[in-house]
């Protein structure tokens, strides 16, 4: 709902992503804030910020697939692995520059997504979920086998360098921020194109969408391609950040994290995906903070607490949202905004 006194009088206004001056102001202020974070944040929290950025890119991929097009996927981290391994192999073996492997990583993951998306024409609902779980395990198994993927030991990844020197943490944060911003803009933009509307139509009722002349197969495959493309980009970012990748990074648990991100943030909302990524990463950050406290309370359980806590806390947070806030953080934020726009009236 628009703020009081703002009316859409032209089609462009109706289509605008940012409608009011306040929104523009907040965007610019927010971007400036995020960019300058690179100047005075360092160490652990810098690492955290970069990981949030990387997961945001992947979460937006799954948002386009699941939130917009309704094609559920619990195999997202395997597609991320495809992207990461593409850049690792092309970079170390063939010496390609990371800037060339960036689109190639996305493409590799996207093509992987196309292959596992083909069954989506025939099946949906949890049959599709099961297919993507199978994709997770089959892809990760396949990556562990041949010598040229480094088996279970993984691969070295060349560092990204500009002008001869490798990127610093802060520069890597700016790179991540830039890519995440582009991804975010793409996701916002696709919702006002014909393709995005097709996605939503397929999600809401695929039979009706087909009757209206939407090519189901193409639309579903395109959703898979775009979603997995972004997973590949996220994989590229992660690989070049870690400088060393191995198959144990891309777990089934990570895939669930991505799904949890869009559930917590709010299904079908782009900014929700970002909020979900931040929320899940905050939970992840809370584990090492809480563990010493719990260890001092239950000394007999000792070493196991951090590992167990990360599982239990994550599960409890997601359960909380499924029970009490099933529409997610985005919806809650909208309600709060609505309240202040209407205040003191009820509607």
């Amino acid at each position, binding site marked *: 709902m628009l703020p009081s006194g703002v009316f859409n009088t032209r089609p462009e206004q109706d289509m605008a992503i940012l409608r009011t001056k306040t929104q523009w102001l907040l965007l610019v202020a927010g971007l400036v804030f995020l960019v300058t974070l690179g100047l005075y944040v360092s160490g652990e929290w810098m690492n955290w910020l970069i990981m949030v950025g990387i997961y945001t890119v992947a979460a937006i991929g799954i948002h386009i697939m699941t939130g917009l097009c309704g094609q559920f996927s619990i195999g997202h981290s395997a597609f991320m692995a495809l992207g990461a391994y593409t850049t690792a192999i092309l970079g170390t073996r063939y010496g390609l520059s990371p800037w060339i492997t960036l689109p190639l990583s996305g493409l590799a993951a996207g093509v992987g997504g196309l292959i596992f998306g083909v069954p989506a024409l025939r099946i949906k609902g949890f049959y599709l979920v099961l297919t993507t779980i199978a994709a997770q395990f089959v892809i990760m198994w396949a990556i562990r086998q041949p010598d040229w993927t480094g088996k279970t030991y993984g691969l070295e990844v060349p560092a990204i360098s500009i002008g001869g020197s490798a990127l610093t943490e802060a520069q890597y944060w700016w790179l991540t921020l830039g890519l995440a911003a582009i991804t975010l803009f793409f996701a916002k933009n696709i919702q006002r194109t014909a393709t995005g509307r097709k996605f939503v139509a397929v999600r809401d009722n695929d039979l009706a969408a087909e009757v209206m002349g939407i090519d189901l197969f193409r639309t579903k495959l395109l959703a898979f391609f775009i979603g997995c493309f972004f997973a590949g980009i996220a994989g590229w970012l992660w690989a070049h950040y870690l400088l060393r990748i191995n198959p144990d990074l891309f777990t089934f648990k990570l895939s669930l994290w991505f799904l949890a991100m869009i559930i917590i943030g709010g299904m079908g909302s782009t900014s929700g995906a970002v909020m979900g990524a931040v929320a899940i990463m905050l939970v992840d950050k809370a584990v090492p903070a809480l563990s010493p406290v719990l260890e001092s309370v239950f000394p007999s359980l000792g070493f196991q607490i951090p590992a*167990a806590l990360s599982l239990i806390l994550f599960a409890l947070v997601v*359960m909380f949202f*499924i029970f009490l806030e099933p529409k997610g953080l985005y919806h809650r934020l909208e309600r709060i905004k609505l309240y202040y726009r209407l205040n003191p009236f009820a509607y």
Partner: protein
Amino acid sequence: MADVLVQGLLVGGVYALIALGFVLVFKSSQVLNLAYGEMIAVLSYLLYEMLAGWGLPSWAGILLLVPCGAALGYVMERLAIRPLLGQPFLSVLMMTLMLSFLLKGVVVLFWGSKSFTLPFTPHGQWDLGPISVIPGAAVSFLTALVIFMLLTILFRRTRVGLSMRVVAADPGVAQSLGVRVRQIFSLSWAISGAFAAVCGILVGMVFTVTPVMGDIGLGKGLPVLLLGGLNSIPGSAVGGLIIGLAESLGSYYQPGLEEVIPWLLMLVILLARPYGLFGERRIERI
């Protein structure tokens, strides 16, 4: 070679039992309980705690574990799944996955990375003519057989079984006929929990009990389930045997292949016959 085949079949019996736990719940309440594998793991560790920690004799531990399993199933349904009745399937699916995380967390919290074999596991090999079998697998296969027979009797001959079949066919009609649908939901979860207890004992006998043993639910249970059909009890038996056989053949020709064969079979089945070999073929497009 014959050893390999027999071993595969015997292990397949256990897989069939795992899939059965999924089928029971799915048939009555249309919920795919992805936490089932972790239920098995938690119950295995509980049995270990009873035997090693509290010093109970084996038979008492086993007898006590089955009601514990039923209680676990009941509590999970009552507290986590029932409030989500009528919610989109993704919420329910995610909830079962989160339950599995919770249970795994409990296992890690109390037992860390300990792994062990159950004390009553028979050792050595049994020689039956030309082939030799691993006794743990043989015992578990026989147990699975008995359970399948009991279950068939339950569904075919008893009133409760009849109500469960009615609920499976159409909960709405069942309710209007006076069947207490919610009780049936609870009951099927409780039975499935009891099966998890039995699976916990059998899996502990065939393999060792490790913190990652819960993965067997996803890794083996799901492919068997899909192969047999989501709502078919004989399907899960046949599916279990097929997956067990395929797996042991796979590892015979190429060690390491056994991890991925169930998934590949599952993908093929999903592409060719999404409703499984024995599943109910629905008219709607799935």
